[in-house]
């Protein structure tokens, strides 16, 4: 904490200068220079207050906040007089301390619900003590045996190899499906619609468009079934359905007309003369 001590010394002088008041211009200018340097050296108004409080040379808990406020305000006045630009933080603190000073000096106003001057002063004392304690703790921390300075790590660390081991696994489902795949591989194929005995409507439409031109007279729809599809029941069913659907499509387009004389009677179609 050599730094802080140094700051202390400087502040002592500077406070002394203020109290002396009427000194020569030269010493005033020297004091002004000291102030500029010191303001730069402080880490904010609380730090400045802490430094000022040290001049009281008493336990931080017993520091006279009133006296401290006076010292701080005197410092700020001096700074203004010497046209030192003070950071806003310092001025806010000055205003607050001026308020605190008035609170401490005037008898308490019973109508005021805010915290009393004593409470505010006690909190400020706590803040100062806490900051001081943290500074000491920081110094103790930095005084410990540090790694890379006092204590050292292994100079030749042995990086250890990562051995990758692959573990294979399978589920019962994989096993069963695998077996089924082999045992049924002759017939096995992915489940898809059996295209072999399906005659699609597109196919039927294409076929009928070619043939329709010749159907000037009423013709049985069943005669339009493609060759080879009439006998196998599955094929016949598919071809019939698609041919019928195709004929409906053609009728919708106005290419043909349909008729059926009775229920389950043959469906007949013919081209519309256009």
């Amino acid at each position, binding site marked *: 904490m050599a730094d802080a001590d140094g700051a202390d010394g400087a502040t002592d002088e500077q406070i002394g200068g203020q109290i002396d008041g009427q000194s020569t211009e030269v010493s005033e200018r020297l004091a002004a220079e000291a102030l500029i340097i010191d303001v730069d050296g402080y880490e904010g108004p609380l730090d400045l207050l802490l430094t000022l409080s040290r001049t009281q040379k008493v336990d931080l808990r017993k520091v006279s906040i009133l006296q401290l406020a006076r010292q701080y305000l005197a410092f700020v006045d001096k700074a203004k007089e010497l046209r030192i630009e003070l950071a806003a933080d310092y001025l806010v603190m000055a205003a607050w301390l001026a308020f605190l000073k008035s609170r401490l000096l005037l008898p308490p106003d019973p109508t005021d619900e805010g915290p009393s001057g004593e409470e505010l002063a006690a909190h400020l004392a706590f803040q100062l003590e806490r900051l001081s*304690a943290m500074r000491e703790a920081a110094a103790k921390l930095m005084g*410990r*045996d*540090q*790694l890379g300075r006092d204590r*050292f790590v292994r*100079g030749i660390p042995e990086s250890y190899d990562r051995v990758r081991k692959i573990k294979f696994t399978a589920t019962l489902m994989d096993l069963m499906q695998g077996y089924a795949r082999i045992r049924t591989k002759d017939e096995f194929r992915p489940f898809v619609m059996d295209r072999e005995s399906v005659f699609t409507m597109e196919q039927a439409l294409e076929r009928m468009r070619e043939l329709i031109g010749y159907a000037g007279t009423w013709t049985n729809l069943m005669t339009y079934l493609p060759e080879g599809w009439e006998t196998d029941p599955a094929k016949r069913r598919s071809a019939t359905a698609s041919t019928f659907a195709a004929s409906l499509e053609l009728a919708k387009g106005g290419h043909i007309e349909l008729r059926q004389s009775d229920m389950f009677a043959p469906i007949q179609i013919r081209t519309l003369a256009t």
Partner: protein
Amino acid sequence: MSDEDLPNLPEGLEPITESLFEAPPEAEQERMVEAILFASADPVSIGELNARMPHGADAASAVQALAKRYEGRGVQITRVGEAWAIRTAADLGFLMQKETVETRKLSRAAIETLAIIAYHQPVTRAEIEEIRGVSVSRGTVDQLLEMEWIKFGRRKMTPGRPVTYIVTPGFLDHFGLESARDLPGLKELRASGLLDNRPPPGASASDGAGETEEQEELFQEEDET
């Protein structure tokens, strides 16, 4: 595997697992911990030690035995949070000019901020600023984060859910602390109430109470381990 895990078998029948994964004798476990710790520059956790040692080994007690064996030697078996590392004895630092790492000189602000985080963790930036009475520059916190001496803790349950900072195992390792509880003067500071988050008079006290509890918890956590 502990003994409790083994099935009760009729006398004379050895469980197969036992013979397959017999834990190595204690002296051997100590050698293993010794080898692993010597090989690593970073602290190694008990969990990792156990993972690397044969099944059934008890790294925790082997480490303890090893630490005892190295008492007073040129290197020390040191505890760093949940992990263990070997470090040279501090009194021999003078021999190591060659190894000395030139660390970036920390500013006064950075050192104070670090101390505040260590003693008040988990702590928000606003709390650090209140304690120091001055705003904390981003660079200061960034530098400490970069050095991996501090890291983000969980967010505070206060409006805005601000992030908190806590110190890392790297911090403990650097300053030779077994845990945050071993910070110098921590007990005295706590006893004197200087680590309490005392809100300024007139401010609501509720925030402060919660914080202290959380802090308590954090140090407690350290205690238990």
